[in-house]
């Protein structure tokens, strides 16, 4: 590379893996390597779980051990996960701090580097910051708490609010839904429990940030959000992990419940390092005239399997999944959406955009189910793929199952390509290769991103830019 060229690209090399740092380990609780009943007992004691939770976990462990890996339809790469090599619980203590000053220095510095306290001050109604297995910090703005909004971790949720927690926990996503929901049910720790009372419209988003710091570790947060009648909430989650030579596992379960007329928007900005297996189950239950919207953006990881869904249980309920997946070389994004129509006049909308770069691979897997007896249901599905450079591949499995008349289903799919010739054209105008790719990617996702909240679209654009700079050979 010439001197001018080096001068033209200043700090990018430092920035491109912005989540790629870790601090030396110093944990008070460590369940050790591998997963047995003993591991579960250790976790229960560390967390001071009630007996019903211990039982729930042990049952789930059995389901997990009995269930085969879904390699008959999913990626064979799952076989490279060696469950005995992970550590399932690491924490400095189960109770989160209420102020950043009380948070241990290394953890605080981690979240400062990721800009969390700053965002909290700028535009959030509350923040939970999870470091490996437990939240290190959790706080909700006083004014929001005074409206009766509960925003705590799963551990406090099940202990302090059992009457709401137990009613919905494991009901939207049963333990046996799939192998990874069973795994999560066995060893879950952290995640958010949120309850928004009737009619309360939370103006600013609540945010959770999930940070993996340790090597050979599995993170299993469990989130349960209930938005009561006529209430509204936007929840955002962000995730990062440092890059290790060994495999990291992230397997969350997220259950949403929107009561009559409620509105719930769940936004994910995921920026995993390329050694993370990200196998997440997310589903919402939408009652009458309510609305659940998943905005799901998957950047990074080695393999992501995630298909956010909505069960449209009440009349006129509405479900939406807007997703963006970016598969860089060596990565596989297997994502999609599930819409289960279970009442008349329910509507669902799925827009999925995937980008594959180099040897990156993006798969869309959808399921839209409208049974025969229902009337006036509508689904719209749009899948667009962008391929940058020729080795990329993309697969679409839309699987739309509609039965009965009087229901309408619309499906569109497109594939576009950015060739080396197009990149050269853009470079000839003075853009670096990374900028050229960024511009194409941003152009491709732009009409979708415009529908996202402002702070989120800015963050997303920044992540795409960093990822593209990093993908230049």
């Amino acid at each position: 590379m010439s001197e001018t060229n080096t001068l033209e690209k200043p700090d990018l090399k430092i920035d491109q893996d912005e989540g790629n740092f870790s601090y030396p380990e110093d944990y008070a609780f460590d369940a050790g390597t591998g997963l047995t009943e003993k591991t579960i007992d250790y976790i229960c004691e560390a967390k001071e779980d009630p007996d019903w939770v211990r039982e729930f976990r042990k049952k789930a462990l059995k389901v997990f051990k009995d269930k085969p890996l879904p390699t008959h339809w999913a990626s064979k790469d799952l076989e490279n996960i060696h469950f005995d090599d992970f550590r399932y619980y690491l924490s400095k203590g189960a109770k989160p701090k209420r102020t950043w000053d009380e948070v241990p220095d290394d953890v605080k510095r981690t979240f400062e580097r990721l800009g969390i306290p700053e965002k909290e001050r700028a535009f959030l109604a509350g923040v939970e910051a999870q470091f490996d297995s437990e939240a290190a910090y959790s706080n909700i703005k006083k004014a929001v708490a005074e409206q009766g909004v509960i925003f705590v971790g799963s551990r406090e949720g099940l202990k302090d609010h059992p009457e709401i927690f137990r009613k919905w926990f494991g009901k939207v996503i049963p333990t046996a839904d799939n192998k990874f929901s069973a795994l999560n049910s066995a060893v879950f720790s952290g995640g958010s429990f949120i309850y928004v009372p009737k009619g309360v419209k939370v103006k600013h988003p609540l945010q959770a940030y999930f940070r993996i710091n340790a090597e050979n570790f599995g993170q299993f947060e469990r989130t349960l959000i209930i938005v009561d009648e006529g209430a509204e909430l936007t929840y955002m989650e962000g995730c990062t992990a440092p890059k290790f030579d060994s495999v990291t596992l992230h397997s969350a379960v997220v259950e949403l419940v929107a009561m009559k007329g409620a509105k719930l928007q769940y936004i994910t900005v995921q920026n995993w390092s390329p050694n993370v297996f990200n196998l997440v189950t997310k589903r919402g239950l939408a009652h009458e005239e309510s609305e659940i919207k998943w905005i799901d953006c998957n950047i990074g990881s080695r393999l992501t399997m995630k298909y956010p869904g909505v069960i449209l249980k009440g009349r006129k309920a509405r479900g939406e999944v807007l997703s963006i997946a970016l598969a860089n070389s060596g990565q596989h994004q297997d994502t999609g959406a599930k819409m289960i129509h279970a009442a008349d006049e329910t509507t669902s909308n799925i827009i999925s955009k995937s980008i594959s770069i180099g040897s990156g691979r993006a798969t869309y897997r959808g399921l839209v189910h409208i049974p025969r007896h229902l009337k006036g249901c509508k689904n719209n599905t749009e899948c667009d793929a962008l391929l940058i450079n020729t080795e990329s591949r993309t697969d679409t499995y839309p699987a739309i199952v509609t039965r009965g008349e009087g229901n309408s289903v619309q499906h569109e799919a497109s594939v576009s390509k950015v060739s080396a010739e197009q990149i050269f054209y853009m470079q000839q105008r003075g853009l670096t290769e990374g900028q050229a790719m960024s511009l194409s990617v941003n152009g491709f996702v732009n009409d979708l991103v415009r529908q996202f909240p402002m702070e989120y679209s800015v963050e997303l654009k920044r992540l795409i830019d960093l990822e593209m700079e990093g993908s230049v050979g």
Partner: protein
Amino acid sequence: MKSCLEIRGLKAAIGGTEILHGLNLSVPKGEVHAIMGKNGSGKSTLAKVMAGHPDYEVTGGDVLLDGNTILGLEPDVRAREGLFLAFQYPSEIPGVTIANFMRAALNARRPEGQEIDAVEYYNELYQKMDLLKIDRSFTSRAVNDGFSGGEKKKNEILQMAMLEPKYAVLDETDSGLDIDALKIVAHGVNSLRGPKMGILVITHYQRLLDYIVPDVVHVMVDGRIVKSGPKELALEMEKKGYDWVENLVAA
């Protein structure tokens, strides 16, 4: 330091086949030169090699911009150093609007944190579009996506006008243009013409050179410049055909 775009004994190959066999050419700043030559003689190859297309291998010679070699620089660095290429076959860039594309290209030339002001930018863009009689609705269309052949060529000149390069190579910008569009494009190029820019026009037709009058005409045969002369050479070429030059070379 000489202010010119200089090509010295340039040899270049693609897929193991040498296309340029030691080409010499010099375009001083402030002048307009034309290259004429048969299909396949290597005109576009020359343009792409200068711009740094990764498929071509330079096997000898040099390309200098105001006395400094640009070989070995990334294509985007060459562009920011002031070299512009109007493509014979411009690429379509789906999803990227002309407005965003040009703004990104201009910002790439400015230090970080000193991005071009939006109002200033649009004033500039609209003014250049008016000059080239391009409808303003084009700003929100994706670059070249679904453009007609002529629209693509106009768009190349719009970009040249926006980026104000030191040296511009126009590869068959006249092909696909109707006579009105040809006049508009020529008018655009002529208005950019001046002491600060050197222009190399590649064409098959004398017609373009009636509107963009060159200072020097070069004839290219099989990867070499075989004859150079004043603008009248183009007329002579048109009358006598390429065989005439080829015979000159053979002789």
